[in-house]
């Protein structure tokens, strides 16, 4: 009680510098928490949406000339495969999507909106009435390129321009962002048939494995099989392909970069805090030698006097860290919205009490250790 009392008096005396240190710790903790949450969320966002949207772990778009039934049989019968399907889609190896800032050059895949298979349970949003012959449903990621429902979307392919009007958006983990190497669209039956007449259809081999690691192995095995069994005139290159492990990496990439930047700032600010604490302790002890001597004369033990100063910094760190952790919950949705725009997926933040407690304990321990490890003043105190 007596130590608390003295600590509070010291904090009142050094209000200004205490507040500035508290702010630094608040910012460091805030960045640390946000960075950690985004780091862990960056992978979870993919997993959660991938399961909810019933999307395949492995997807291979093969032209008619390339496709062999044996490839699909291999995929279907592989021990790593849990579920599989072969559907017809339209594929463009080198599609072009012009937008205000430039042109996206990427492989494109078009599915029939009116056909439902084993995979894909898309959720369409922002649905708008457009003319049936122009309607197209675009992945959410196109919003970040300035597209909105009702906008015209021109797709270029082999010198031809195909004009559509966006009737709505959907979230997807399967070719939903440009980092995966492809983008997927839905066309209503009529439009699909029209485009099919012009370009032709491809085969899409879809499969799910037990885990992402298995999906990667399955991918390797299928490609290996195709390489060994394709005849010399058959192309072995697919329009687009992907497995969940690599897609997760592509989706997580931006989030991890964002998290790394925030964590980097957090580390820098934390180092500054540590230096400030160390300097202030040293300074405080030097200027408080009279006070320390008086307290010892009154009957305070050396350990009790040291505790007063250590507690001062522990209190500042605790309050700063708690404020940072709390603010993190308020600020995170802002980052979540930004990530939603980048990923084109819903980003729900789940509080992590263990992580928050660890952050708090880390801050407290660091300031306690740093303020306890004796500056010269403490040594003089002990000797006297």
């Amino acid at each position, binding site marked *: 009680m007596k130590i608390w009392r003295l600590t509070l008096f010291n904090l009142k005396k050094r209000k200004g510098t205490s507040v500035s240190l508290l702010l630094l710790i608040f910012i460091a903790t805030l960045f640390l928490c946000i960075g950690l949450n985004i780091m862990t969320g960056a992978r979870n966002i993919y997993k959660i949406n991938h399961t909810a949207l019933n999307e395949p772990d492995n997807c291979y778009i093969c032209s008619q000339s390339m496709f062999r039934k044996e490839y699909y049989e291999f995929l279907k019968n592989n021990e790593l495969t849990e579920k599989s399907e072969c559907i017809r889609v339209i594929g463009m190896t080198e599609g072009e999507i012009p937008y205000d800032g430039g042109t996206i050059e990427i492989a494109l895949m078009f599915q029939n909106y009116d056909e439902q298979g084993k995979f894909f349970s898309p959720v369409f949003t922002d649905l708008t009435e457009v003319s049936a012959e122009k309607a197209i449903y675009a992945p959410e990621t196109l919003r970040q390129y300035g597209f909105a429902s009702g906008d015209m979307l021109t797709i270029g392919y082999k010198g031809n321009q195909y004009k559509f009007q966006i009737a709505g958006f959907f979230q997807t983990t399967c070719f939903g962002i440009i980092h995966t190497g492809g983008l997927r669209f839905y066309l209503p039956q009529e439009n699909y048939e029209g485009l099919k007449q012009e370009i032709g259809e491809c085969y899409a081999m879809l499969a799910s494995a037990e885990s992402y690691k298995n999906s990667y192995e399955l991918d390797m095995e299928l490609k290996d099989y195709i390489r060994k069994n394709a005849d010399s005139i058959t192309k072995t290159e697919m329009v687009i392909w992907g497995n969940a492990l690599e897609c997760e990496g592509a989706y997580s990439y931006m989030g991890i970069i964002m998290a790394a930047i925030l964590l980097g700032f957090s580390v820098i600010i934390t180092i500054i805090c540590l230096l400030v604490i160390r300097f202030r302790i040293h300074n405080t002890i030097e200027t408080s030698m009279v*006070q320390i001597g008086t307290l010892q*004369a*009154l009957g305070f033990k050396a350990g009790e006097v040291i505790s007063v100063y250590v507690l001062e910094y522990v209190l500042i760190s605790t309050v700063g860290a708690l404020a940072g952790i709390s603010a993190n919950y308020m600020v995170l949705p802002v980052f979540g919205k930004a990530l939603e725009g980048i990923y084109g997926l819903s980003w729900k933040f789940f509080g992590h009490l263990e992580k928050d407690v660890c952050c708090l304990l880390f801050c407290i321990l660091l300031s306690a250790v740093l303020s306890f490890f004796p500056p010269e003043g403490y040594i003089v105190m002990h000797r006297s």
Partner: protein
Amino acid sequence: MSDIILRTEKLCKSFSTGGNQQHVLKNIDLEIRKGDFTIIMGSSGSGKSTLLYALSGMDRPSLGKVEFQKRDISKCTNDELAVFRRDNCGFVFQSIYLLDNMSALDNVLTSALLKRKSKKEVLEETKQLLKKVGIDENSWNKFPSQMSGGECQRVGIVRALINHPRIVFADEPTGALNSASGQAVLNILTEVNREGQSLVVVTHDIKTAMRGNRILYIKDGNIRGELNLPFYEEQETEKRRKEVQLFLEQMGW
């Protein structure tokens, strides 16, 4: 004869300065009696303050023994000495040393709450004592920077007395004060001594020395002389002054 509360046996204290040993106290044998107003006098550098700190447990002797109520405190650890000071001693310093981030009341409470847990219990007593030494209610919440030297020293005395110490040690308690403030402080010390408080005061001021009933003169690290007087009475100041002056002259002061 009063009880002896503090006793030294061949007390020595040395300091090393630049490789040389400086022997400040040399084989001091001394007894402090309960209820006495003991004055330790001597010229500058004679070892008065060193002796005071050795007696009070603020410093450890190099050789010899300091016994407080038959307990040898010279063998205590730093923490044990801290507890000893807390439980038995009060201190009044020349530079006062009030904690500058606390009011007068809180300064006293800081000392009081070392021994007692309940603020409610000590608050009333603190206020009474502050009133007794002439610190009125308006000054209780003042900070040391807002009070005069005399007021601060009076608060320092209350801080020293609040835990009912067995003995109060004062190092030049009027040294930093003007004449009027110094007189007020001496009056307080005299009054508490009359009520039974044991005091050991270091001074080089004859006015302070006159308040004591026992004057020890220290020279070259040892007690050279002792003067025993009746307890101070204001009406006998002049007679007392002459006695003390004569003693000091004999000691070569």
